[in-house]
Every structure is written in structure tokens, then in C-alpha cells.
């Protein structure tokens, strides 16, 4: 329970510091859950729909980040994805996000989670915010060390 609170508090703090409308963290589940990736923590969410979603590596925004280990920066959702295929991005849809950024969180040289921050207004996600989000991820969250390269 203590750990749970830590993650949540850290997310709340990041959200407050940067003014995100929505901030969420996806983590790999333990072996009993077949190591699936789920959204475990969120702050500023409009509903609970995101909790039901199991992320597919390589699909959707967070899936892309998880697979490639590269951040995704979307200043305008409208420019990034046509309305007809928005259903492929259920969180963007249900949380009504208009601009967002997502970064990988490393642990022990592996992508172990995805941190996604978004706004319900266009162009609020900026390169500066992107940089800050990456910094936060590199700093590590909860148990995750944030290290892309193992320190010898």
C-alpha cells in the first residue's frame, strides 16, 4: 500500500508542477498477470476507462513508446490522427486529450513503463514540457531506476 501511495504522490506532484490535465503511468504486470502492460496510476482522469485497457506493445501511443524506447510528442492530436481512426487511441478519446507527450521509463536497461502527460487543449504540450517529462522519467519513479544504460 505504501508503494502504491508513493507512485500516486509522485504522479500528482509531476502533474502539479507542469500543469497537465491528465497524467498516467503504465507498468508491466508481474508474472501472474502474464507480464501484460497496464495503466496502473493516473491523475486528472475523467473516467476509469483507461484502467480496463491492456496495452499492446507497438500499438497506440504508449505501445509505440514501450516498443521503441523513444518518446512520442504530439502537439496536436487532430493533426496526428484522423478522426476516423481515433478509436485506436482509446485513452486520447476517452480523456479528450488534444495535445500530449509520452516517454519511456527505464529500469535496469529495459523499458519498464510509459509516462503519458496530456492536455485537453491543443498546442499546450511544448518541447520544453517534453524535455521536463523526459527528465522526470530519467529520474525514476517509484521502484523504477530510470536508467537506460546500466551503471557499472
Amino acid at each position, binding site marked *: 500500500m505504501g508503494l502504491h501511495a508513493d507512485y500516486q504522490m509522485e504522479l500528482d506532484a509531476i502533474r502539479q508542477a507542469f500543469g497537465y490535465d491528465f497524467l498516467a503511468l503504465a507498468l*508491466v504486470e508481474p*508474472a501472474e498477470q*502474464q*507480464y*501484460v*502492460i497496464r495503466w496502473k496510476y493516473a491523475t486528472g482522469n475523467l*473516467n476509469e*476507462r*483507461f*484502467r*480496463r*485497457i*491492456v496495452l*499492446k*506493445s507497438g500499438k497506440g501511443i504508449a505501445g509505440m513508446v514501450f516498443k521503441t524506447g523513444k518518446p512520442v510528442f504530439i502537439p496536436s492530436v487532430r493533426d496526428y490522427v484522423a*478522426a*476516423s481512426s481515433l*478509436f485506436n487511441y*482509446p*485513452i486520447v*478519446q*476517452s480523456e479528450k486529450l488534444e495535445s500530449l507527450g509520452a516517454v519511456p521509463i527505464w529500469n*535496469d536497461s*529495459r523499458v519498464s513503463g510509459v509516462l503519458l502527460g496530456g492536455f485537453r487543449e491543443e498546442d499546450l504540450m511544448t518541447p520544453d514540457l517534453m524535455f521536463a517529462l523526459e527528465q522526470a522519467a530519467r529520474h525514476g519513479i517509484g521502484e523504477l531506476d530510470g536508467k537506460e544504460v546500466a551503471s557499472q
Partner: protein
Amino acid sequence: MNSPLEVGPMSPLMMKLFENSKEAIFFFDKSGRALAMNPAAEEIVSEDVLMKLYEGSENALCGTCRGYTSDTEQITCLDCYFQLPASAEHSSFQVYLETKGKGVVPYAGSFHTVDPENGTRVFMLRDLTPQLRVQEKLYQNKMMKHVIEAQENERKRLSRELHDSVAQELMSAVVDLRVLKYMTDDDTVLKKVKQTEAAMTRLLDDIRHLSVELRPAALDDFGLEAAFRSHFKRVEENYGLIIQFVSGVARKRYDSDIETVIYRICQEAVLNALKYAQVDTVSVHLFERDGMLRLEVEDEGAGFAEGSDPIGTGLGLYGMRERAELAGGSLSVQSEPGIGTRVLLQIPIAESKEEE
């Protein structure tokens, strides 16, 4: 213009047949000059060809005839029926005529000698357009069925292949990896192995999903209800959409064709709701009534006005209807902007199947 009297006396009944028949009748003498034509015949031939026919000019009929169907070709002039000697006459064949105002029309034609002494021949034509249209429709339906069947079979093959060999092999590799745990105490190795195991487990999951998405084995092995339940669970995991499924056909099996149609249409309807209705929940109801298997997919979402421009291609609904009709069923879609959409599919189920 012409007088049937030219071809000799006819009984009143024969006269009536000649004058009022819907079939075109032409009489030709042995030189190929038209002796008489009934009104139905004059109706289809253009004025100048008509003149030429009565004048008996060479190949006058060619002014309207576009060829006939031989053993080898749809439309040909090779071995023209008009030129053949009486001994080799075709009793019936398909022929194409350029008609007045209706373009090229297919006819069932017959051309034969009715008066061997004078060499008088009769050419009779019956419009084949409606029959051909029916035939074409039947053919199209048959083709469509074959295409769908081929698609389903191919999907089934790929799905089984993925499930039975690829996933199996991967599974045994994952088991091998787990065994490594008992072979070393080296922490770095164990950590690495665990990461690899996690990645491979997810890959295994992906392959299973792919297999089920192609065609759920559950549909063939356990029937509609089982296939629906696992499909809806997947939709929930992928999109967060909740599907309230009520089934009144517990563990019942139907014709594989019917099960496939219901499954595919439901899949499409749910996907439509997901794409366009902007809802969190969709309800699906599967039940039997009055010898019909019914599927209802309902949402309380955005809806649409009938006849309005579709947001998507608009082909989805068309495809659903097509599939339903091929199975002898019907599909109705009711929708109202701001209120929601309801898709109802009904497919008749054979009585004999119920007893099984």
C-alpha cells in the same frame, strides 16, 4: 406496311398469335428476303434495317444482329445461323440484337425451315434480359458465398497454424527459459532471463491474439456464446469498451455458416459502435424467437440520421447486409442522432438443427 397474307392464309388463331405475340417473328424466303414480320419484330428493328429486310438486300439482318453465342464464344458471327443449310440448323441459340432504343439485348432465338418446298424459314426471338438478370444475381450470390467461404477457410488455416505450431513452439521455449532459474544462482543472469521471459510471454500473448482475431477457434469448437465472450473481453482490454452480453442460447450450436455470419456481423456492429457512437458501453443480446436466431447490438451513443453522409466508407453496413442476406436473413438498423443505434439481425434456423 406488311401483310401476313403474303405468306398465305392463316387461321384466325394463328393470326392472333402472329399479331399479338410478345415474341418477335420473322419469315424469310430462301433468298434471305423478309416475307413478313410481326409487330413485336418491327418494334425492335430500326427503320432503315426494316426497309433493307423487306428489300431482301444481302446481310440485311446483320444491320441489327450482333452475333450469337457459340460453343466457344459469347458473341460471334462464325458459322452464322442465317447461312447454315437446313440440315445443320440450330433449333435454339442465344443471339444478340441491336434494338431500337434499348441497345444490345440478349434473345433466345430459333431459326429453322418451316416450308421445305419453298425454302421459307422462320426466325423467332424471345427477350432473355429478365432471365439473364436473375441468373446473374444468382451467380453473384454464389460467387460472394465462395469468396466469403474462402476467406473464412484461409483465416481458419492461418489461425490454427499460429495457434498450433508457432505458439506451441514459443511456449516450450518459455518453459525452457523458466528451467534456467534452477540452473544458476547468478543474479544478473536471472534478471536478464526474467526480462526475456516477460518479453516472450507478451509475444506469445500477441500471437494468440492474432490467431483469435483471424478466426476464433472457440467459434468452431464451442460455438457462438464462447466466441463472443472471449471477443468481448478482448475488445474491453484493447479499447476499454464494456459490452453487456446477454445470451439466451447457452452452449447451443448452429450451422457453421450461420454462426460465422452472426459472429462477423456482431464484430462489425460492435466496432461501429466503438468507432462512431462515442460510448463506454454497448449491449449485445443473442436469442432465439419464432424459428429465428436474433442478434441485437444496441448503444445509447451519438447515432446518425438515415441517409446522411457516413463518417466512414459506408461499406460496413452494406457488407453486413450482404452477409445477412446470403444466409437468408435480414438486417435492420435504427438510429437517431443523440439517442443511439440499434442493429437487429435475424437469421432463420432450420428446424432439424434444433433437435440435435
